[in-house]
């Protein structure tokens, strides 16, 4: 997916975050969301390694190796930020204190199951990090991902074939084609410019319905 498309997805998701939301951004595509929140809103970003109120990256040369985010990239702190230890960072997740976790995804099922931590390879070691904690703990889980795999296989499926991160947790999916709410049904809330419902359905492995 092009950088432009990735930013478009991130911008679209950022637009839906309300003022005052506490948000954790997963590594990869979701990280881009921070750069697209409307300036009129205060969004407080949480990092699993013990930061709340994460600001933009520092200017080149001003990096501090003691101040990084979950992706180990240098960050800054906004006025009002707080630093805490790792356990408190996960109390925030597991205790349901984060309003939104915006995560990447390999697959999302019609029932909201999320697979985003392992491709089920047996030769390489698995690595889970905070993915399961976020998926199980945040008040709302939104997934930002490409609509299909590089080879064109749907990522939105009846049942995930990759190992699950958490069952039944995804509430919304943002792709380059559509915004889809996950509930009793998969409801296409919005189509990208020039994209038809049929185009999206043809690239989706589960039944979609149009928003009423």
């Amino acid at each position, binding site marked *: 997916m092009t950088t432009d498309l990735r930013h478009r997805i991130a911008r679209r998701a950022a637009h839906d975050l309300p*003022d*005052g939301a*506490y948000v954790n951004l997963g590594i990869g595509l979701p990280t881009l969301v921070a750069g697209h929140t409307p300036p009129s809103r*205060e969004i*407080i970003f*949480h990092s699993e390694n013990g930061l*709340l*109120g994460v600001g933009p990256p520092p200017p080149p040369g001003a990096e501090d190796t003691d101040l990084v985010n979950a992706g180990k990239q240098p960050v800054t*702190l906004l*006025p*009002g*930020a*707080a*630093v*805490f230890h790792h356990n*408190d960072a996960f*109390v*925030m*997740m*597991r*205790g*349901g*204190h*984060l309003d939104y976790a915006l995560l990447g995804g390999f697959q999302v099922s019609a029932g909201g199951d999320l697979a985003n931590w392992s491709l089920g390879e047996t030769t390489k070691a698995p690595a889970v990090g905070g993915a399961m904690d976020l998926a199980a*703990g945040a008040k709302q889980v939104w997934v930002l991902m490409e609509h299909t795999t590089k080879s064109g296989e749907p990522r939105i499926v009846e049942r995930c074939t990759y190992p699950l991160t958490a069952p039944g947790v995804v509430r919304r999916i943002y792709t380059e084609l559509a915004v889809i709410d996950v509930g009793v049904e998969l409801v296409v809330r919005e189509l990208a410019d020039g994209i038809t419902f049929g185009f999206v359905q043809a690239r989706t492995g589960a039944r979609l319905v149009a928003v009423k």
Partner: protein
Amino acid sequence: MIDKIVPDLAAALAGVGDGATILVGGFGETGVPFALLQGVVRSGVRNLVLVSNNSGVADKGVSQLLQLGRVRKIICSYPRSAGSVVFDQVYARGDLELELVPQGTLTERIRAGGAGIGGFFTRTGVGTELTRGRETRVIDGQTYVLEHPLRGDVALIKGELGDRWGNLTYRLSARNFGPVMAPAATLTIAQVRRIVALGDIDPEHVITPGLFVNRVWACDE
């Protein structure tokens, strides 16, 4: 813009209603949010369940709520102490349900409530009447008892400094239950001695990060 600062006591306590379970910070008289409790008294709410280490001294705070018959049940570790005259009377009359919990188990149950822990095993209280009939388990040759999380509809706590994002500091041993209770309630309300500008509290010195706090009210107490 996030602004958790409320202008007055009424705004601080809006929505605190009959039947609420309220976590009340403090140890003895230290760190008790007396001004908020005074507001609860005035609001007239009743049928409350209080979670508080002590049961009030003299005739203010928790004592006053007890005296006025507003409390259905109290969950605490040390209800009887010097000056807990009101509690003693109300309890003797049989007008109050008491759930007595060892102090470390009380704080750990509240911590679990805020941390999304469904239950935990502790050795505290094993072999005593406070855990009689409860589920136990032998782990590595030691007997543990299963304890359950405790949450509040409301937490009333007392901080030292607060800002508009809800970040809090505490002063000395007035810290006690505040940081433990703040994450464990649906609505966490802090009275603080002083409101400061965002950024005035060093991020490394924040004790309760703002996401655990819903309202901050400055009160000269």
